[in-house]
């Protein structure tokens, strides 16, 4: 029984043989994260700044936009873009579909977090920066945004962790990232060990982030 378990889940020989494939997948996962996290942050910052507009003609459509993309499961959005758009003659490919889906989905989440951050900075900060002669954009960039980010840092880290985990969805649209490669190796070898190895890789990379997050959250609660 224990031998069976080791054979089908912790088969070192198979993992070593699959390693080149898995390593390429890991590289793709890291690359993907390096692309979609900044993309989502940029979209989120745009949403957060726009949602502070005075006109309801800006705020209401924006609220509808974020609510829509937060209520759609990211996989639904991804499949829609990947499998639906080609019917219109628009083929964005796996990279295009993934980038767009993450921009829309994670942008909406980052937007909510950053908006809360901007709201937490007292208006006096902006006024003081303007009084010192800083232009509005510079005041925003140098004075308001850094404080906003610091105030919502745990939520930002938590969201980023979720985004990196979400990159595993790209395997569904045949992007050769870590999970996809592990599935390939598993189907060739009829053995689950490559998937266990992939899970281990995710864990090794993301565990420090989870620990950091626990610490940040505990600090936030203790400070209340």
């Amino acid at each position, binding site marked *: 029984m224990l031998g069976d378990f080791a054979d089908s889940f912790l088969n070192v020989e198979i993992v070593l043989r699959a390693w080149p494939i898995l390593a390429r997948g890991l590289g793709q996962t890291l690359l993907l994260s390096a692309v979609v996290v900044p993309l989502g942050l940029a979209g989120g910052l745009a949403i957060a700044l726009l949602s502070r507009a005075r006109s309801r003609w800006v705020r209401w459509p924006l609220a509808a936009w974020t609510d829509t993309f937060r209520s759609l499961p990211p*996989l639904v959005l991804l499949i829609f873009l990947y499998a639906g758009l080609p019917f219109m003659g628009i083929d964005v490919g796996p990279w295009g579909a993934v980038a767009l889906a993450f921009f829309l989905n994670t942008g909406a989440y980052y937007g909510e977090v950053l908006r809360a951050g901007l709201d937490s900075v007292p208006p006096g900060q902006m006024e003081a920066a303007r009084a010192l002669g800083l232009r509005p954009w510079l005041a925003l960039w140098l004075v308001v945004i850094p404080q906003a980010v610091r105030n919502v840092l745990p939520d930002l880290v938590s969201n980023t*962790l979720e985004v990196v985990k979400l990159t595993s969805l790209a395997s569904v649209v045949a992007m050769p990232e870590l999970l996809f490669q592990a599935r390939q190796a598993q189907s060739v070898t009829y053995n689950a060990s490559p998937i266990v190895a992939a899970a281990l890789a*995710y864990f090794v990379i993301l565990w420090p982030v989870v620990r950091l997050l626990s610490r940040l959250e505990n600090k936030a609660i203790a400070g209340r």
Partner: protein
Amino acid sequence: MGGLDGFAFTFLNLKVMAEWLPNITAGFALTVLLAALIVVAGLALGLSLAVLRAFGVRVLNWGIVFVVDLFRALPPLVIIVLLYFGLPGMGLSLSGFWATWLSLTLVLAAFSEEIFWAGITATGRGQWDAGRALGLRFLPILFRIILPQAVRMVVPPLTNRTIAITKGTALASVVGVGEILGSAQSAMAFSGNPSPLTLGAIAYALLFLPVVGVGRWIERRAAIPGR
């Protein structure tokens, strides 16, 4: 066909939608069932782990923290795939539905344990001392003084997290479950038209927009006045 007509024919084809509506409705019911089972089991397990952690047995707590960290760090899809494709190798076989249920239950349990625990630790030391001064023992203090406050305190993060994890039910389509996304995808394949996918997206909006509203209502009801 012009651009807008073409768009309507492709994504909002009422004839195709009407034809596949029963399938999507069945998928909707399956999603609701799966989500309900995940929420009940996940929150119950999470709360139990947090209570267990309150006993302060060091070795046990290390184990709880490790398992919680594990399921917070792993992508849910990886866990689902591992359970679905891995377990048969051991002669154990879970259907796609139960593999998804187990995976997301464990993930929700991990996240909610962390949240419940945060609530327990945020309930001041003085509450324990006051309970003890009244002559109460550990368990009555925990269940009648600490937990009622802790749970109410953590309702907002808890509802957010629960909703986010429940949306993961769409992942079940990857392991062949005919929930909303799965049934919409097969309808799209059969009809050669993506309108069922639009229908699926509408179904999710119908499901989750009210859930978000109910979440806000629960938050208001549970809020501790003056905190």
